[in-house]
């Protein structure tokens, strides 16, 4: 049984039919990526899985249970956490308060200190800045904070929406190194990206999304070789 199973979901914004029957699966310990251009519906898919939106038709199943209409704040307790598009840093809170917010759902307070240590080890920069107001962090540091904050919830499934957005290439590489590390430590990841090159370099499998529909799915290596993907998303002819 797949950890996450999305069956033919249709999501609407009012009358706008944003997702027209998306199906995908994520197995435990995988990194799966969802690539596609602007407005393809990547964010909408993640928001539907995370419970911020609910699908009008279709089903989202997590570890076998239907979570289609479970609100986001309850899913966090079940092990699904999302790093939202644009990072969603609480800019008026300090870095450490942001991390505390990430740990809001934690009931096992005993292991909390280990997790602080772990994220500070992953992102030493955050440790130096923990008293600083988060709004004053650089873009790269904010991405680190958003990721660290999500890890504080100790998720089993981590949804990430365009972590490379707005970052310099060198930082993008860093971010993806971290993603690999997080995955190795035992967190399953569903990664949304416009930057298909890096996304496919870390992912096991991928889905290609176009105007609300999945047009292609395969393992990452095959996708990298695919004619259409190369043209449309990797910028190679």
């Amino acid at each position, binding site marked *: 049984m797949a950890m996450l199973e999305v069956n033919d979901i249709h999501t609407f914004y009012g009358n706008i039919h944003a997702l027209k029957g998306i199906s995908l699966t994520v197995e435990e310990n995988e990194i799966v990526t969802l690539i596609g251009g602007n407005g393809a519906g990547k964010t909408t898919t993640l928001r539907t899985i*995370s*419970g*911020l939106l609910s699908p009008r038709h279709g089903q989202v199943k997590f570890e076998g249970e239907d979570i289609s209409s479970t*609100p*986001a*704040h*309850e899913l*966090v*307790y079940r092990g699904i*956490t*999302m790093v*939202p598009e644009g990072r*969603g840093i*609480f*800019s*008026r*809170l300090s870095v450490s*308060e942001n991390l*505390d*917010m*990430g740990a*809001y*759902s934690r009931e096992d307070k005993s292991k909390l200190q280990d997790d602080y240590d772990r994220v500070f080890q992953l992102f030493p920069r955050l440790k130096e800045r923990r008293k600083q*107001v988060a*709004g*004053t962090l650089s873009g790269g540091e904010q991405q680190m904070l958003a990721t660290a*904050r999500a890890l504080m*919830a100790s998720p089993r499934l981590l949804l990430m929406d365009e972590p490379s957005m707005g970052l310099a290439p060198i930082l993008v590489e860093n971010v993806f190194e971290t993603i690999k590390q997080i995955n190795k430590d035992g967190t399953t990841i569903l990664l949304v990206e416009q930057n298909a090159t890096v996304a496919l370099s870390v992912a096991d499998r991928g889905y290609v999304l176009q105007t609300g529909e999945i047009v292609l799915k395969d393992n990452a290596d095959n996708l990298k070789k695919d004619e259409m993907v190369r043209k449309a998303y990797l910028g190679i002819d």
Partner: protein
Amino acid sequence: MSESNAEKTVKPLDTFRIVQAIIAVLFVIFLSWRLYSVISAGIYGPDTWLRFTISGLIIGSVYSVIAIGYTLVYGILFMINFAHGEIMMLGAFAGYFVLEGLNGLVVDQAAGVSFLDQYQILSVILAFVVGMVMAAIVGYYLEKIAYRPLRGAPRLIPLISAIGASIFLQNAAQLIFGPKRRTYQNPSALTRSVGWRIPISGEEVILTYTGALTFVLSILLLVGLYVLVQRTRFGRAMRAVAEDKQTAALMGINVDSVISTTFVISGALGGAAGVMWGIQNGIIYHYIGFIPGLKAFTAAVLGGIGNIPGAMLGGIFLGIVESLGPAALGIDFQLKDVIAFSILVLVLIFRPSGILSEVLTEEKV
């Protein structure tokens, strides 16, 4: 991009700033002249000024407590809960009935001593607790019934609903309690206009016990609230919800319940203010929430609506200004409300984000 924007807007902003500055300077000159003529005429002795200051601090502290109620809700929902003054009024009534009831409860048959006079501290505590709980319940249902269904609607809509709720609660109170003015039954230790006598330049200024209670309790509530917001897990959740509801939900925060709780806290503060109002001023009826509500709203705007320390300082400031203002300007005391609302208009015109907002955001960032 933001830089080029800034360049473009510098010019018109400058002329506006100059006009503002000129008006401000003229205003200050006018105020100083009035103040000078009042003081040089020696109409009021130091005892009178002290009296005004004390009463300003007391009423100001009540405004602060009410203002926090506006600011908490605004900070989280970006709406002005115009029914907040009515919540305060209902809290005042709840406290009133507690004190009435305890006064009627005779504990010592022989001497005819009531519970109210036998256990004075306990009675006052009970009045506050019941007043706060009742007001909190009203706040909770107010949000559920009048505001929650409108969440996501354009901002004007909940505002209209708030005004409707305010009128509704006022009329409901009139219907239930009748239009008559009722006298708050204070325990004997809190007899109104009795207090410590402070000798000053041959005169005596009375610091009433009710006033001292009001002031001290207000400060305690403000400090308590500040600690709640800044230091507790719930306070952090509240600040997170205020900043970004969706991301807050992604942290596992139940946004609806945080909003409900905010209304409960805001209502409880309103209720406490209502009981203080009753104990301090003595007379309550269905309309008492309206003017203090508007004044506290002014105080909240003055401090930058949504800003908690701002609302505290705004309340105290407004209390002092309206208390000292008529004397300082040498105008009729009836005009103190005019002063308060002139301040509201001036702030809304010249500094809609509040006097404190810039200082505080700069300090925070």
